[in-house]
């Protein structure tokens, strides 16, 4: 797959001296969904704004579909759709005319069939003649997406698409994203909801303090970083861990009914077989065995934390 977005050594220092991006490198392949995770103020929005031309880079290069965003700004920007974080819309304008305006602004001739298709896809067709201010917050967000899609972009940026959105709408949004991916649109979304990245992304990047800490396939990331836990549930409670099991660094649940063992899936020997035989040798009777894999959230918190420790 060819790269649709190439970012090289991108740096952004704001007028007040704040360094929002420090030497960011990123390559995004055609057709994938990439989630950029990071705490507030990490530089996610600055990164997107710079690619889209809203913010001027201090240094570095960005190419979209092979076109430099400064030198060939027309070609580059024609390929990009942007859904901003804030709901910024002309309140008195009709839904359909604001979407048609966006299409025209991006240089595409009016196409009623296309506009209808986009509005239907986003369940906005029935509201097409409503003024934007009459819509609910969730509907307004859909209008933002419709505007961004109006010129049929190849690369769509969704900046915090589900911030402050209720659970139901969030699920809807994920479905919309899945539909766009099926239609061949490359999607970059920022979020600070880990579950969102986990639910829809192919790759996950983690940004903190203007640096790309890592970017990796979601599954690989979770594999690589994944700590697994084995919970051994006992048929009768115990008050303390038998001495024979001390080497395993087990933790005992409060009710005394479960022992938890942490292990790394990457290690050649996880020690599970020996643990289980030692448990039965110690005279404990097993009721059930459960394993758990750490979520992206655990990985993320671990990474951002490590980053902060490095900085100090």
């Amino acid at each position: 797959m060819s790269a649709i977005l190439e970012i090289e050594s991108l740096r952004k220092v704001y007028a007040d001296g704040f360094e929002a991006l420090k030497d960011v490198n990123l390559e995004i392949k055609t057709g994938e969904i990439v989630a950029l995770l990071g705490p507030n103020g990490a530089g996610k929005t600055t990164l997107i704004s710079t690619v889209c031309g809203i913010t001027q880079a201090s240094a570095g290069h960005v190419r979209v579909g092979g076109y430099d965003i400064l030198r060939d700004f027309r070609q580059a920007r024609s390929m990009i759709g942007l859904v901003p974080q804030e709901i910024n819309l002309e309140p008195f304008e009709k839904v359909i005319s604001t979407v048609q305006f966006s299409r025209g602004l991006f240089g595409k001739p009016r196409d009623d069939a296309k506009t209808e298709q986009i509005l239907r896809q986003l369940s906005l067709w029935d509201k097409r003649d409503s003024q934007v201010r009459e819509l609910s917050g969730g509907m307004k967000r859909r209008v933002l997406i419709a505007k961004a899609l109006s010129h049929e972009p190849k690369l769509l940026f969704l900046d915090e698409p589900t911030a402050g959105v209720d659970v139901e709408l969030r699920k809807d949004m994920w479905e919309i994203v899945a539909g766009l991916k099926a239609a061949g649109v490359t999607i970059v979304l920022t979020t600070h909801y880990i579950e969102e990245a986990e639910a829809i992304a192919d790759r996950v990047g983690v940004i903190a303090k203007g640096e790309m800490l890592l970017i990796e396939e979601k599954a690989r990331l979770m594999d690589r970083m994944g700590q697994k836990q084995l919970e051994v549930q006992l048929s009768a409670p115990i008050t303390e861990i038998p001495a024979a099991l001390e080497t395993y660094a087990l933790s005992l649940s409060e009710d005394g009914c479960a022992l938890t063992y942490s292990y790394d899936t990457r290690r050649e020997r996880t020690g599970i077989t020996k643990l289980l035989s030692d448990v039965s040798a110690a005279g404990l009777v097993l009721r059930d065995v459960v394993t758990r894999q750490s979520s992206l959230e655990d990985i993320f918190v671990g990474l951002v934390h490590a980053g902060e420790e490095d900085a100090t």
Partner: protein
Amino acid sequence: MNLTAVRAIFKFEMARFFRTIAQSLISPVLSTSLYFVVFGAAIGSRIEEVEGISYGAFIVPGLIMLSVITQAISNASFGIYFPKFIGTTYELLSAPVSFLEIVAGYVGAAATKAMFIGVIILATSFVFVDIQIAHPVAMVLFLILTCLSFSLLGFIIGIWASNFEQLQLVPLLVVTPLVFLGGSFYSITMLPPIWQTISLFNPVVYLISGFRWSFFGSADVPIGLSLLAIAAFTVFCLAVIWWIFKTGWRLRQ
């Protein structure tokens, strides 16, 4: 040149104008009629002719200029300030359009609205006074240039303003006095010599003088100078806007 984009912006802006067509047109027509009643009929009847023209007719070019300049500035400044205020400039900045296209769309729409109003006021004045237009082509040219240049100025004000007070500040504190003191209601030859000299530093004098010349064939300053002044003003505004987009001043971080 992304002409589709220019057309999109232009149409979008004109839609705003037509949405509020009543207030867009009624208020200038009403205020102009009031001027005719007060200055033309009530006071004007006691004023002798100015340069051989009845006072009611004499003030027509100035009145049109007054409205056109005010409207051009307020339309253009609001047109670009409002997207800034509600945050929709992100779309303009991320679109494949150059500054010239953005300006052509916004300023073109603002100038067109101002033209509309200018023409309507001219039509209204035919109801009140008897006027002939000596140089119709020059009249239209002056009208277009005035609409255009002051829309450019309005665009700059709209980008500069960071709140609604500032948006009103320049038109109120600078433009209105310049227009009133620019000979809208009198010929500057009626002033004492010292004030005549001071008036020559007021750019609006050249506009109104030139515009009045196209109606009556007489002017305070030579017509060539008037044309030069307005051309220079247009170029100046364009240069400022070019600089704004080049540096991203107040638009792009």
